[in-house]
């Protein structure tokens, strides 16, 4: 078995990306994700890859667009305000059906916000973010091991479906160290006949483009892309179910808040409350069916989030509003405590 090493979440993302065959990284410094850039700056020159500190987040994502057009695995990373700047490029990448990885190690917002952990970019990540009809595949790691594993998974899914993927972490996940076994990746290259690598005078020219001046063509393209999204929703939903077998109440939380909520669930069980947890690993596609099924079983839901309540809307939708859904939240860089979650579970039980 490969060696367990202690790594920061941010570093695990970077090393896993390299293992996944990513040789091109473009970024811009912003707390709390700069370790990714620093790691890439150190490693990429030694393995014949590209590290480039771009002039802006906007330039960085468009460099990603360029490399993705050529068919190579490529990534950028940033934190909330920087990811807002990247939305233009992300929309173009989605609109041109290109695979790429965008990492968002979230911090508090809106505006310049703060630098402490947050999950308040949930809407931005899962509902579009940029202009137009599109989705990102959004993966939410809850351990340093998952920071590594889901980075590899994100590259694979992006290639498989020709669409951008996002790793949505937060400052805690980025900064914390845990033991991690770095994944060994089969880097067999994916065929990309659409890539702009030069015609070699052997084929008609390839065009990477998101412009369709004829509305019927744009409509057709959008419908086709949504058929692809439907397949992703059908095949790629990932979630963890914790103590749900006999649960009468269901906590829904992702990333760092799922870690914290787990403590609360265990504490509640000790008090005799039959509570379980569903932890979405893919935020888009959202584990709608799992929540819907839980709605038949449980008396209520508790959405635990580091935001003013964003994922709670998806929980309500998925549960068909058949059960009460409470919110346990802190924002601005404050983090919920297991005690706060437990108190909300008590509140849910008392309804």
């Amino acid at each position, binding site marked *: 078995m490969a060696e367990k090493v202690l790594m920061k979440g941010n570093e695990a993302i970077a090393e896993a990306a390299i293992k996944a065959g990513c040789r*091109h990284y*473009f970024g811009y410094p912003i707390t709390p994700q700069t370790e990714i850039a620093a790691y890439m700056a150190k490693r990429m020159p030694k393995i014949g890859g*590209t590290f*480039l500190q*771009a*002039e*802006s987040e*906007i*330039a*960085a994502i*468009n*460099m*990603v*667009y*360029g*490399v*993705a*057009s*050529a068919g*190579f695995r*490529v990534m950028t990373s940033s934190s909330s305000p920087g990811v807002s700047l990247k939305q*233009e*490029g992300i929309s*173009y990448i989605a609109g*041109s059906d290109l695979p790429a990885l965008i990492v968002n190690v979230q911090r508090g917002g809106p505006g310049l916000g703060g630098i402490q952990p947050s999950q308040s970019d949930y809407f931005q990540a899962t509902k579009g973010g940029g202009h137009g009809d599109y989705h990102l595949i959004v993966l939410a790691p809850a351990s340093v091991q998952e920071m590594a594993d889901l980075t590899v998974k994100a590259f694979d899914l992006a290639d498989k479906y020709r669409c951008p993927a996002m790793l949505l972490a937060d400052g805690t996940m980025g900064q914390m160290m845990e033991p991690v076994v770095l994944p060994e990746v089969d880097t067999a290259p994916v065929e990309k006949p659409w890539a*702009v*690598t*030069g*015609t*070699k*005078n*052997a084929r008609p*020219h*390839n*065009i*990477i*483009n*998101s*412009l369709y001046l004829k509305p019927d063509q744009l409509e057709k393209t959008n419908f086709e892309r949504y058929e692809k999204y439907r397949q992703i929703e059908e095949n790629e939903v990932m979630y963890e179910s914790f103590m749900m077998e006999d649960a009468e109440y269901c906590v829904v939380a992702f990333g760092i808040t799922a870690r914290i909520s787990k403590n609360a669930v265990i504490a509640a069980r000790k008090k005799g409350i039959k509570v379980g947890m569903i932890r979405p690993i893919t935020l888009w596609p959202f584990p709608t069916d799992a929540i819907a099924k839980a709605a038949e079983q449980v008396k209520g839901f508790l959405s635990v989030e580091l935001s003013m309540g964003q994922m709670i809307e998806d929980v309500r939708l998925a549960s068909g509003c058949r059960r009460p859904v409470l919110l346990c939240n802190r924002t601005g860089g404050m983090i919920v405590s297991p005690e706060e979650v437990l108190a909300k579970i008590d509140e849910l039980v008392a309804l």
Partner: protein
Amino acid sequence: MIVFEKPKALTDVPLHYCPGCTHGIIHRLVAEAIDELDILGRTVGVAPVGCSVMSYDYFACDMVEAAHGRAPAVATGLKRAMPDNIIFTYQGDGDLASIGMAETVHSATRNENITVIFVNNAIYGMTGGQMAPTSLPGQVTQTSPYGRDIATAGYPIRVSEMLSTLDGPAYIERVAVNNVKNVKNAKKAILKAFRNQVEGKGFSLIEVVSTCPTNWGMTPAKALEWVENNMIPYYPLGVYRDKYADAKEG
């Protein structure tokens, strides 16, 4: 005897440009350079947003359509991933000198080994004739209906002069395509800008002073005169940077 042929680097798609617009000439000069260097099979072009947005249909090489102003960043990505390919951008003045100025300056200062064709016609053509960063003082446009007022809209940007203050770029020249002599010079400059990249010399930018008869509200002939009498005096033609010229002489 064949004395003139359409370059192989152009497709058969009919150009959509207005009568008298010089984009067509500039497209041909770019295509001829690609043909003469025999690099069509390994060239990737980056189209901008603006009148030449659909140039991805006209050039026969692989093409990428960039967001407004981002072509040099996209080209940077392409070139870093494929250093043996020839990467060029084709951009207008709003694209390159306004919304994309940061990408322009930084790709130049990094001396990215790419070729930038910068078409300066002092107006936003595609959107219907608004003031550009290169619109002349007093120039009437849709968004400067009383003439560009330098008190509120500031001065035009002389891109070639500005970029030549950087240590990075290899080659910067301003040309025009308003008469036969200038077209011939422009052809030489564009060819050199591509050859520089083939030879690994670095960032080469050719600013082509161009026309927009439609949005200038002139006949094509008048537009060419306006280039001679108004544009060129403000934007003098010539070589602004040639890193390797001095080396050759020394």
